[in-house]
């Protein structure tokens, strides 16, 4: 049978194909990825888009948690200070209720409680990074202002709005409690109770009832502080979860699109050997034909 007398184009095509394999292997080694263009593996390329989005989200959720943590820790420790101040007021009230206290001492106690009163006002007007923490969603408005016409001595200028922030694909967290709920709920109004304590000490009547009122306000705040404690715990837990998720996503990315370096390097070696063998074979056989042997 007659065969193709000029196999050079076949040899060139084979060399070109092997060279393409070598290029692709080298690209995989350089990038560490087996999917460098969508056509390398269309389904994997689409998965990698999703993976990149999820991993970007996870990073973002962690940044957002960081921002929220600062504000909530501040709110939590401020509430702690509020409770401490209220406990002091209670002690002072109990002291003032004692029949043996003279009027000069009682006046001093009243002054101290008035000091606590302005301290509580300043604590409730906590501001964090330009935002009032306890004014609902009216974060640019001072929540409590002194108002001599109000029975409690202050007026709440905030609103009852709360914010929730998405911090995971299935996790949304409420991030604030409005002052109206925390400090000035009807029946457990902190400012009203302190004002009542001062009034009772001034008049000398109903001090015990006023102390109980302050104590109730303190208990109410203490109970609501749990909200911040829980939220902070949840943030920590979510952060841990997101770290794990980030690791998993990176693993998934590697599984879907990572290069199997051992296999790639082995392929590369095979391809290089094949090129060399082809070239040597061609070099040895290509230049002979019958003409050379004719005399």
């Amino acid at each position, binding site marked *: 049978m007659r065969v193709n007398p000029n196999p050079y184009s076949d040899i060139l095509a084979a060399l070109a194909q092997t060279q393409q394999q070598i290029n692709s292997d080298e690209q995989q080694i350089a990038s560490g990825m087996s999917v460098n263009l969508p056509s390398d593996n269309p389904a994997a390329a689409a998965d990698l888009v999703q993976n990149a989005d999820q991993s970007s989200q996870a990073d973002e959720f962690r940044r957002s948690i960081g921002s*929220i943590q600062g504000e909530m820790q501040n709110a939590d420790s401020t509430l702690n200070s509020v409770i401490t101040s209220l406990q002091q007021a209670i002690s002072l009230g109990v002291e003032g209720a004692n029949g043996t206290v003279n009027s000069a001492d009682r006046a001093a106690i009243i002054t101290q409680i008035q000091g606590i009163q302005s301290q509580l006002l300043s604590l409730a007007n906590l501001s964090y990074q330009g935002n009032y923490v306890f004014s609902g969603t009216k974060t640019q408005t001072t929540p409590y202002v002194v108002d001599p016409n109000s029975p409690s001595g202050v007026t709440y200028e905030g609103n009852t709005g709360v914010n929730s922030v998405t911090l995971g694909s299935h996790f949304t967290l409420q991030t604030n409690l409005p002052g109206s709920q925390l400090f000035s709920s009807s029946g457990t109004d902190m400012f009203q109770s302190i004002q009542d304590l001062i009034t009772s000490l001034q008049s000398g009547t109903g001090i015990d009832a006023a102390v109980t009122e302050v104590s109730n306000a303190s208990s109410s705040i203490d109970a609501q502080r749990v909200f911040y404690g829980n939220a902070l715990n949840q943030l920590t837990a979510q952060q841990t979860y997101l770290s794990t998720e980030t690791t998993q996503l990176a693993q998934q990315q590697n599984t879907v699109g990572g290069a199997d370096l051992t296999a790639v390097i082995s392929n590369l070696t095979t391809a290089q050997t094949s090129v060399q063998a082809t070239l040597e074979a061609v070099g040895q056989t290509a230049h002979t034909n019958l003409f050379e042997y004719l005399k």
Partner: protein
Amino acid sequence: MSSLNASLASALSGLIAEQGALAATTNNVANVNTPGYSREHPVLATSDPVVIDPLTFGTGVTLQSIESIRDPILEGQIQQQTQAQGQFSTLTSALQQTQVNFTSSAGDIGTAISNFFDSINQLSTNPSDLSLRQGVLTAAGNVATSFNTTANNLTQQRTSLDLSVVQQVGQINQFTQQIAQLNTQVANLQNAGENAGTFIDQRTQAIDQLSSLVDVSVIPSDNTLTLITANGAPLVIGQQSFQLQTQTNSSGLHDVYSQGKDITTQITSGQLGGTLQARDTQISGIQAQLDTLAAGLANAVNGVQVAGFDLNGKAGTNLFNAPSASGVGAAASLAVAITDPSLLAASSDGTAGSNGNAEAMYALNQQPVINGQSPTDYYSGIVFNVGNEAANAAAEQSASSFILQQLNDQRAAVSGVSLDEEAANLVQYQDAYSASAKVISTISSMMQTIIDMKSS
């Protein structure tokens, strides 16, 4: 009874025939590297004998013809496969270029969309913060830029493919003209009973090149042939070629016309087929998907934006320029409509600290706002489509290359010049020539013997 003169004539016919055969071999050796050349083979036959009762004497050898060795069926298959090869190599190189726009990078659309939603999530933690608001505007600007860049790249690619259409039509016209001329030459030679092998080789070569450009069918007839496209538009009929024309259509691209008829959508193969397919189907399909994504995203974000309140408590306005109702061109024209970060409507109750609307906007990234899919899902679908089309075209191209390689091998096995074979033929013809010459010199000495006989 035969005569010495008759033997001399026979020997002479041998000399002439071997010389002719040698000429064929020489031509084969000379054309060993000529593309499309088919080796020539001398056809030797015994001359008609003479009968001189009761004996019949041979009268030597005749070189009947020099034949080109070719397999027309194989050549037809090569032309078919060359069309597929032309189509898929054009398509592959176009789609390779297209898919670069969809590889993951800092500026690709998928990353820009992710970053945009991330910036909204960040804003949600502190909705009155101006630097976070600015971050959202910047991210929205990056989304618009990534859509614009990709859409413009695709448009430019279609424009350059359109230029190729015009160039390829020009090349087709050159080849059809050439083939018509070759048809004339082949017909003239064959009508005169001559060997037209060289012109047939050239014509076959030209048809191969034409096949790489367009889907062409060859219909051979006596001494000539007719070329038509797959859908029947005439290219060459006998000695006349029919030019294809291009004409600009309403979208500024060129359509292909034959005899006044628009045949653009009917050209399915060859480089022209591949170019048209990339320009009018594949890339324009991807453009349409990008427009759907851009318009869907802009409309969804705008819808949320106008439902909320900005930093000053006023009702929100569009964040992105409203796309056209049809969405056509949305990716190329996507732009951010506001420059003042306080105009972002993060608030759902009109207060500066509310993040309700920012949350609603963030939630869009998981909602089926683009043809029933989330923005990222839809985008990853585009990446899959682009990759899949490029991979399929590359696979087809590599398959047709392989088949073409095989067919060319087979053709070379039939028609290719083998130097070994030619060397052997050379020796064979040389030996025969020497032998004939020896016969002549022998007859000559026999004649001399007779002449000497008389004069002595």
